[in-house]
């Protein structure tokens, strides 16, 4: 009887492969970015077996999320462009790092803009920024430690912002994947910048290290899917908080970003 079950499963596998072939054909060779996203959007509306409808978000919802993300990417890309242009700010030893981060943020602006346009949406205009946040970070472009603190704030906020929007993109196929692919890049940046500050690359408890506390609110959570992880593992509670990054809602992120946005 076991063998019959196995044969059924093998047959199922062949059927699954066949169903996936269309998705693979459409996305194969298109590479990253717009083409890949567009090719897979309609397919994203199907479930993982490709044969059953799964409700996905409307274009309006997707564009709303992407415009939110675009605002944050404008914030970051403008910040790094200005930081790299400020003479004597970034030590030569660290220039390579910030050039790489700056390149990615500019890439993200372009990727999001193109995607929004292709979804018949209108990309938000680039806001005007005040990187001192009304004087809180007055020497942001003359004091490297301040610059690092603001960079750290933006990167960790970015990670939380994308994470918070992922459920809104559930069923959006490759657009969701692209958002996740940006999300992890922000996390790589965050780790690097934190370590430049002499911090751990990961977030312990809700420690803000001089940045606004709101950016780390809730990062000390230890309950995941209703499981208090500290009760099922032997590692210290602080490690559990480090092991799971927490999301922020759009409203929470906009409240954090608000002081940096003039108009």
């Amino acid at each position, binding site marked *: 009887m076991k063998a019959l079950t196995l044969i059924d499963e093998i047959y199922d596998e062949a059927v699954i492969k066949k169903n996936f072939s269309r998705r693979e054909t459409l996305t194969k060779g298109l590479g*990253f970015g717009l083409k890949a996203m567009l090719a897979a959007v309609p397919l*994203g509306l199907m479930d993982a077996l490709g044969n059953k409808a799964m409700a996905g978000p409307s274009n309006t919802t997707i564009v709303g999320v992407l415009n939110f993300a675009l605002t944050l990417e404008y914030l970051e890309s403008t910040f790094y462009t200005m930081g790299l242009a400020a003479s004597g700010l970034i030590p030569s030893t660290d220039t390579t790092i910030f050039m*790489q981060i700056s390149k990615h943020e*500019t890439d993200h602006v372009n990727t999001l803009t193109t995607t929004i346009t292709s979804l018949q949406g209108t990309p938000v205009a680039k806001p005007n920024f005040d990187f001192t946040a009304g004087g809180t970070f007055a020497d942001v472009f003359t004091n490297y430690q301040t610059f690092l603190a603001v960079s750290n704030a933006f990167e960790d906020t970015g990670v939380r912002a994308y994470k918070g929007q*992922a459920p809104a993109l559930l069923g959006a196929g490759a657009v969701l994947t692209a958002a996740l692919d940006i999300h992890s*890049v922000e996390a790589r940046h965050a780790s*690097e910048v934190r370590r430049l500050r002499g911090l751990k690359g990961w977030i312990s408890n809700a420690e803000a290290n001089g940045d606004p506390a709101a950016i780390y609110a809730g990062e000390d959570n230890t309950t995941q899917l209703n499981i208090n992880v500290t009760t099922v*593992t032997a590692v*210290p509670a602080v490690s559990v908080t480090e092991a799971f990054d927490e999301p922020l809602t759009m409203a929470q992120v906009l409240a954090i970003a608000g002081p940096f946005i003039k108009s």
Partner: protein
Amino acid sequence: MDTQIKTQNMLQKALQSRLGRRKILKYGLFSSGAMVLGLGACTKHNGGSSMSGAIDVGGGDTGILNFAYALEQLEAAFYIQVNAKFYTNATSAEQAILADIMNHEIAHRDFFKNALGSAAIPALTPDFSSVDFTSRASVLGTSKALEDTGVSAYNGAGQYLSSADYLTVAGKIVSVEARHAAAIRDLLNPKSADFAGDDVVNASSGLDFSRTPNSTTGGPSIVATANTFLKTKISATQLP
């Protein structure tokens, strides 16, 4: 045991007729004793068995969570061994990072085991014979591969989840894996662009490299990569 052999023979016949020789060779069905081992294992879990006799992670959201659980088991086992005796001349800073990462991966592993409950695949036996645990380059190189693989795996599987809660928890974990990857990459090549290098982050789109479990774009699949470090092999026949 008789039943098992009988089952194995039946399965071989079935496979030969349905799949043909090429596919059988591809999956290496008769190259080792893995078949019997695999069949033994497949009676102990809910993920189903695969054509290769490996432990299959299953399908749907459960399959994706089990796939993640397999990777976390692998990572946890690796860092436990790394921390048991650090490589030669490991600095205290390096030891602190590797100890933290070990704790994170153990937390992930234990979380998934608990979240999956009776649907969880069994504990996997790792095979780190390819790693020289006395060598910094070998340990950090393996760490980098595991972390980058983890990032691409979570990113690639995310769109196949149907539960928003699972998607969120996967997001909570993948960014920590990305933080690990950046730190390890920086240890290997300090102050370079490698923490988010062009080999993993597309230089024109700024998107991290992501792959589905069985995708062979850019090299061996994630499943195949994981299996190079596993005695008990896994498969993901119901996932893309």
